[in-house]
């Protein structure tokens, strides 16, 4: 009802004429009406809210609790704020003059709280709607819900639940409109006018902030999760749209790299991102290092040092065994469990928390390229499409979101990280305490427990020296080869032995331990027991296992392993005649011409052990038991298998092995001393 003259402020101030007063009154009336509307609608709004929160909600108890939480969100908080707001409004009713001013102030007072509670509700509203639509699909459930709603709020009509749930949204957007109406009907000169103006713009800001918040939340939830797409799904997603998006991004990025297009630098963001990357690095490294530590701890626990059982009952050995067992099963086990619960788990949670921001940062980078391209186009063309506007908006939303929340994220993460490290330290300390306690109680039972550590070490060193000396002597006594058994000499070889002895000296004499069959031209064939003298302990090729020896008659090579140093036994004549042979060979003076057998004081004699038939003129026949005189214990070629003997006045060769030495006088029938 615009009256051209009535709203003229100058006319009003100048003259309270009937016309001016009339229009003023009209304004006042409208103002009053608007204020009335504000208060009344607030009242009924609050009433509805209360019905919603209590009656409707309890009526819908058959729905799961989680659903109800999503549907009704923070409606109780809204009720709280609104009821206080209403009270404030109702109080202003008494102050007629200043009511407008008071209302304006009230709004200014409450607008922040409104923003806080309504933004949560609004951001959640989409999810609530999704649920409502889901319920619609189930006819039975839908009917039930509808019934309850209609019972409580008849005016809801067929839209039912959604009608009810949208009410707070409607209310918050209504505030600026209501205020606007009051403002329109207030004279600009009125003292309340500026307040009202501020209030109105404040409420408008509240609404735009709520929208912004809602959009951020949407963007965040869209991009924080990287979907696990299979390759096929990824390929399916590629269409012309996404391809063109990606190619334009790429080309823009290349232009940036080439310097054709300036990069949007955002120092604030870059600083935040850098810090975030370091925080991420810290957490990731700590997590993987802790994993390695835990792995090693587990390997350590699998190892069983106490299951060694040396048969030493009692004493330190048992002590140690039980200590090791305790340490492993109790102390370290507990440590491991606590470590897993109080350090590892939190680290894992921390690491997973950082995934979302990582994705967002990546996405922002992509969107930034879009944004820059759009900005470029804007500069060039002056207009942009709706889509481009949207992508610009997305970038801005992402950017502001990250800038707003990254500082807090970084700080919280670092605080938690510090806490985890401190916990790790505390666990180590507890481990040390427990282990020390066990070890000390073990030590208390040791014999030397009162001795200080350095003294004990000295004592131990001395003990170990002593025992190692004992062990050494043990070893030596076991290893000491008892004097080698000397073979009895072959009959008739004493003279030979004497000859060798005089020529080469006693250290060079060796006895054959087992018969040698010479195979090569220079190899000798020797009998067991034979004495030789060492000429060289290696052959011409340097082979040390082939020795050059002299048998007294011949020289040649023999395997060294079959020789044993011959100790010329210094004789002490034993009472028993049987050992006489060995002893006496030492007594004999080297007289090669003498036949040693007969020179000895008739202790031994040589007889034929077996009969032998001579087959040539060089040989001589033997009868078993015949006494023979050995002239030479080898043949002309030095072969010891033949001996030159004299028997019955005849001389000839006989096999050496057919001869035997016996103590004499040895007539038939003598009995050996047993």
């Amino acid at each position, binding site marked *: 009802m615009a009256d051209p003259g009535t709203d003229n402020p100058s006319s009003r101030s100048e003259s309270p004429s009937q016309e001016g007063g009339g229009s003023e009154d009209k304004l006042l009336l409208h103002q009053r009406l608007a204020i009335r509307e504000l208060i009344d609608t607030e009242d009924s709004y609050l009433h509805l809210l209360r019905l919603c929160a209590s009656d409707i909600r309890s009526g819908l108890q058959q729905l799961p609790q989680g659903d109800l939480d999503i549907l009704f969100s923070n409606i109780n908080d809204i009720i709280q704020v609104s009821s206080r707001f209403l009270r404030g409004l109702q109080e202003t009713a008494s102050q007629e003059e200043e009511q407008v001013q008071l209302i304006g102030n009230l709004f200014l007072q409450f607008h922040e709280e409104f923003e806080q509670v309504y933004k949560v509700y609004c951001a959640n509203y989409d999810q609530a709607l999704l649920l409502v639509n889901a319920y619609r699909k189930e006819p039975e459930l839908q009917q039930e819900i509808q019934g309850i709603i209609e019972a409580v709020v008849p005016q809801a009509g067929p839209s039912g639940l959604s009608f009810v749930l949208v009410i707070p949204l409607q209310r918050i957007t209504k505030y600026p409109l209501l205020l606007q109406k009051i403002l329109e009907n207030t004279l600009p000169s009125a003292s309340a006018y500026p307040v009202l103006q501020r209030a109105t713009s404040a409420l408008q800001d509240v609404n735009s902030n709520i929208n912004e918040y809602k959009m951020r939340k949407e963007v965040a939830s869209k991009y924080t999760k990287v979907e696990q797409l299979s390759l096929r799904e990824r390929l399916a997603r590629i269409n012309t749209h996404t391809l063109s998006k990606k190619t334009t991004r790429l080309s823009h990025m290349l232009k940036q790299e080439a310097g054709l297009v300036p990069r949007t630098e955002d120092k604030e963001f870059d600083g935040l991102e850098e810090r975030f990357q370091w925080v991420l690095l810290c957490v990731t490294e700590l997590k993987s290092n802790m994993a390695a530590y835990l792995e090693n701890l587990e*390997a350590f626990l699998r190892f069983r040092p106490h299951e060694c059982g*040396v048969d030493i009952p009692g004493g330190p050995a048992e002590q140690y065994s039980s200590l090791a067992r305790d340490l492993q099963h109790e102390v370290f086990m507990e440590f491991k469990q606590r470590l897993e619960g109080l350090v590892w788990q939190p680290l894992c949670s921390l690491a997973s928390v950082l995934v979302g921001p990582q994705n967002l940062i990546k996405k922002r980078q992509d969107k930034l390229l879009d944004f820059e391209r759009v900005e470029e186009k804007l500069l060039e063309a002056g207009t942009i499409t709706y889509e481009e506007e949207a992508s610009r908006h997305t970038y801005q939303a992402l950017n502001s979101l990250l800038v707003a*929340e990254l500082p807090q994220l970084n700080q919280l993460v670092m605080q938690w990280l510090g806490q985890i490290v401190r916990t790790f330290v505390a666990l180590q300390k507890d481990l040390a305490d427990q282990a020390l306690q066990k070890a000390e109680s073990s030590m208390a039972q040791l014999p030397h427990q009162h001795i200080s550590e350095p003294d004990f070490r000295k004592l131990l060193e001395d003990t170990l020296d002593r025992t190692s000396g004992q062990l050494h002597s043990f070893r030596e006594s076991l290893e000491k080869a008892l004097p080698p058994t000397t073979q009895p000499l072959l009959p008739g070889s004493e003279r030979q032995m004497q000859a060798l002895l005089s020529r080469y000296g006693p250290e060079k004499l060796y006895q054959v331990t087992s018969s040698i069959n010479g195979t090569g031209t220079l190899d000798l064939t020797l009998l067991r027991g034979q004495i030789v003298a060492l000429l060289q302990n290696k052959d011409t090729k340097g082979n040390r296992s082939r020795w050059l020896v002299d048998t007294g008659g011949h020289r040649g090579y023999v395997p060294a392993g079959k020789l044993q140093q011959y100790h010329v036994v210094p004789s002490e004549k034993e009472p028993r005649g049987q050992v006489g042979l060995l002893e006496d060979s030492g007594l004999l003076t080297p007289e090669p011409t003498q036949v040693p057998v007969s020179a000895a004081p008739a202790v031994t004699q040589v007889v034929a052990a077996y009969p032998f038939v001579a087959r040539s003129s060089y040989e001589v026949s033997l009868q078993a038991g015949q006494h023979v005189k050995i002239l030479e214990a080898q043949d002309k070629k030095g072969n010891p298998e033949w001996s030159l003997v004299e028997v019955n006045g005849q001389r000839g060769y006989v096999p050496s092995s057919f001869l035997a030495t016996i103590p004499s006088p040895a007539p038939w029938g003598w009995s050996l001393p047993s």
Partner: protein
Amino acid sequence: MSWIPFKIGQPKKQIVPKTVERDFEREYGKLQQLEEQTKRLQKDMKKSTDADLAGVQAAMSKSAVKISLDLLSNPLCEQDQDFLNMVTALDTAMKRMDAFNQEKVNQIQKTVIEPLKKFGSVFPSLNMAVKRREQALQDYRRLQAKVEKYEEKEKTGPVLAKLYQAREELRPVREDFEAKNKQLLDEMPRFYGSRLDYFQPSFESLIRAQVVYYSEMHKIFGDLTQQLDQPGYSDEQRERENEARLSELRALSIVADD
């Protein structure tokens, strides 16, 4: 049955009395078992100190050092003084613990592993001596059989001669065997008994080494917790705090809800 012509099947005359043989078996048996145990103990001890040196416990020590090292090298240390202080202190502590671990290993090496090795080194000589005794016994048996063979024959001149020869050969061999036998029967129980005195100090040393190591650890980490202003929380308190921090982080929009 005397008409059986084959003399090979006849049981050998017992030249070594049964009781002596039994004693020998028993003592040697005990020592063989001890050898086994010593070898096993040595292996375990070696694994354990290898564990300390290059195996699992060393790995634990080294990975603890790596934890603090990586933290120290993070650029955040330059920006955050508190963080730097905490991490530096941790790093110092870890390095010192690693050094003590090394010391523990060295001590064990000296007082347990080395002596064990020395003890174990007696066994090869012992086994060799037993083998030689066995060899001597075989020779003894063989020559004894030969003498007996001749003794049973008709006493003709050649037989007597051979008999004399055989007895000459037998005597040194028998003496040799008896000497070896006696030596072992003396030494073996002595050696077996010595193990008690021998091993006790080593085990004492092992326990003491643990005490030393854990006292140092207790001191170092006690100091560290003092330094880091660590309140004495219970495990439940810590868990609750972790939950709280997690929810705080999850409340941020940029953190994905799952």
